[in-house]
């Protein structure tokens, strides 16, 4: 496609200078041949001049049979910038761990050069590869070419959003379970829930291999699966001594900062009282050759994180203090718990109420009752400090009479 129009962009030009890679250069590079990317430059310059966005509320567009994966986007200046009058986003479910080969990237680029703006996000916040800017008639062709290449769309709207994970055992010695394997499994298991929104609101899974939580699961996902261990930290005393010799102040930098206050260093040997270890990762992070997570590994599951909209931001909180994550994943009881939670949330949640907000509204104790989980002390920072207790003995007696 030829690009005939050229825009003057004095504002954006200033963002082509400076040492950090420039997104303006990327849009302009695409705009040399692609009229959509070229018109985006014009529209964006206008936004910079006016300090105002020019995108309208998304409309409902998508590929046949799917309710998610495409976010409709239209410009409010279609006459002036016709090539971006439709500029829909396509979310492409990334391979777990964001691994690619040169070959597959070229093929993905071929599809996108043929049908879209030539612009992407590598990657979007949830984890998808984001293809920015597609017209409505091109959606189906893009989809069919993507599936031929073995790719599928990600989630959007009130569905299971594209699960994502840290690189886990593929490259990290701290991964306490196979985050990528589990992520691929979850994504495949919930394909229907991912493509066809049927929940009160979005439902995100994020998998981190250890409490360093590199994918921010505790802040960004409804279901946060964080690797951990429950036996002793593995110690290589010789390597610990080497760190000490090479300038790590083990008392000041490690023992004092240990939240369990369970590390003792006598100048020669490190001792850890593992029964008080909080599994925070700090000592291991500082001395990766000297210390390692234990051998009895699994994950803690936390639930309910979200950004502020609607009722305020939440961090996930503990729902299962420890579970083993081993193949065959399909045999894990966890899926029954998840589906039970979804049932309770779908039956009782309000529109646009995330599961974390739902739990806040009905109370964690009541939620546990509904899904059939036992309350355990690991679920709270501390027990309640107010006496307004809904004792249920009376209710239960009545139930028994029936």
């Amino acid at each position, binding site marked *: 496609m030829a690009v005939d129009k050229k825009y003057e962009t004095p504002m954006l030009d200033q963002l082509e200078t400076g040492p950090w890679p420039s*997104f303006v250069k990327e849009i302009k590079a695409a705009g040399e041949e692609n009229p959509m990317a070229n018109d985006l430059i014009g529209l964006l310059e206008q936004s910079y001049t006016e300090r105002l966005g020019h995108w309208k509320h998304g409309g409902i567009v998508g590929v046949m049979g799917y309710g998610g994966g495409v976010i409709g986007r239209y410009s409010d200046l279609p006459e002036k910038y016709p090539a971006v009058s439709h500029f829909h986003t396509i979310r492409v479910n990334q391979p777990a761990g964001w691994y690619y080969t040169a070959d597959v990237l070229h093929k993905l680029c071929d599809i996108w050069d043929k049908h879209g703006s030539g612009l992407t996000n590598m990657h979007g916040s949830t984890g998808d590869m984001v293809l920015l800017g597609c017209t409505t008639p091109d959606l189906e062709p893009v989809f069919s070419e993507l599936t031929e290449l073995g790719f599928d769309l990600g989630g959007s709207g009130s569905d299971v959003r594209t699960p994502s994970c840290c690189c886990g055992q593929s490259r990290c010695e701290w991964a306490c379970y196979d985050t990528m394997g589990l992520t691929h499994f979850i994504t495949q298991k919930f394909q229907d829930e991912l493509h066809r929104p049927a929940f009160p609101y979005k439902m995100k899974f994020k998998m981190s291999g250890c409490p360093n939580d590199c994918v921010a699961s505790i802040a960004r996902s409804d279901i946060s699966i964080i690797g951990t261990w429950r036996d002793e930290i593995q110690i290589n005393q010789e390597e610990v001594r080497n760190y000490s010799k090479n300038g790590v102040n083990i008392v000041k930098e490690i023992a004092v900062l240990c939240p369990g206050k369970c590390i003792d260093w006598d100048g020669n040997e490190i001792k850890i009282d593992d029964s008080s270890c909080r599994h925070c990762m700090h000592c291991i992070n500082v001395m990766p050759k000297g210390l390692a997570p234990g051998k009895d590994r699994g994950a803690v599951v936390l639930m309910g994180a979200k950004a502020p909209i*609607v009722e305020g931001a939440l961090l996930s909180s503990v729902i299962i203090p420890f579970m083993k994550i081993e193949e065959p994943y399909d045999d894990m009881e966890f899926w029954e718990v998840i589906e039970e939670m979804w049932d309770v949330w779908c039956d009782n949640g309000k529109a646009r109420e995330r599961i974390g907000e739902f739990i806040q509204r009905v109370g964690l104790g009541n939620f546990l009752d509904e899904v059939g989980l036992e309350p355990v002390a690991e679920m709270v920072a501390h027990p309640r400090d107010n006496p307004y207790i809904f004792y249920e003995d009376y209710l239960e007696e009545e139930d028994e009479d029936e």
Partner: protein
Amino acid sequence: MADAKPQRLTDIGPPHHDRFMPPIIKKNYGKWKYHEIPRPGVLVHTSDSGDKLYTVRAGSPRLLSTKKIRIFADLATKYCGGHLRFTSRHNVEFLLTDAANIDPLIADLDALGHPVGGTGNSITSIVHTQGWVHCHSAATDASGVVKAVMDDVIDEFKTMELPAKLRIALACCLNMCGAVHCSDIAILGIHKRIPQIDLKTLPKLCEIPNLIASCPTNAIRPTTYEGKPSVEIQEDQCMFCANCFTVCPAMPIADPDTDGVSIWIGGKVSNARSEPMFSKLAIPFIPNNPPRWPEVVEAVRMIVDLWKANANKHERVGEWIERIGWPKFFRMSGIPFEKTHIDDFKHAGLTFKRSAHLTY
């Protein structure tokens, strides 16, 4: 049938990562023993078998053209058998088995304008959202602010001289697609003017009960306009969250003269040492000043420098401030403390100072 079309594929899910991982990773999957960072931007992972994997990490603006992706792909072909990955913070990583290729790859990346770094105690790429490039909700641009900030702090990307790692994130409205609320420094777009109700189109575009229910503060009240059901906003109850606009396009809230950004600091997601925590409000408002948002850049730089000069080793921004106390932070930074810093949403009382533990 001779002209039968191939069946339309659906619900196939993403390709399995086995298709893309380099042989050295397949071989050593789950067997990595330890890692080292020999220089900024380079990781060496050693496995039980003694194999070594060299990762070279380069910064990226997240918004990439297919042209650039193809160049990355070709670099991967040239230096590492065509294998690469991206990180959750938009960096690109090349996965090498031959240490001799590290320097030439870094030279090529530098020439391409993609700096190598973002490892260890550094500032890595800024997680961010779409802004004016692609979203209807934006109170500020995303990519432009990120570019201006990273241009300024790039030395902290290319070195590892900070007390701990520093994570910056930007979201261009309260929807926070980038969930910035647990970052060392969060830049958050905010609106400050109530939605301008488009009374004419509202009945056609929106379901009034849904619209009323969408407001967290019950600021939206039913009324009638030209005899038809409509809504009005209790101005003093509106906190500019734009939730109503999300469910109803006839409630536009963006306004060039009052939109801008706020800066929140001291959040973290890692469990290391202290528990994960939210970022807290440092600077309530900075007007949008494109194309380079100099006031935002300066504010970020000031906070980074102050932390760098005063924090103990391993102390994230939030841990440093918890140690010295917020009043001391406000005194040291010179940021004026205002009414807006005091929480007045749910459970606000828990954020009041309930002890005599003060610094003077």
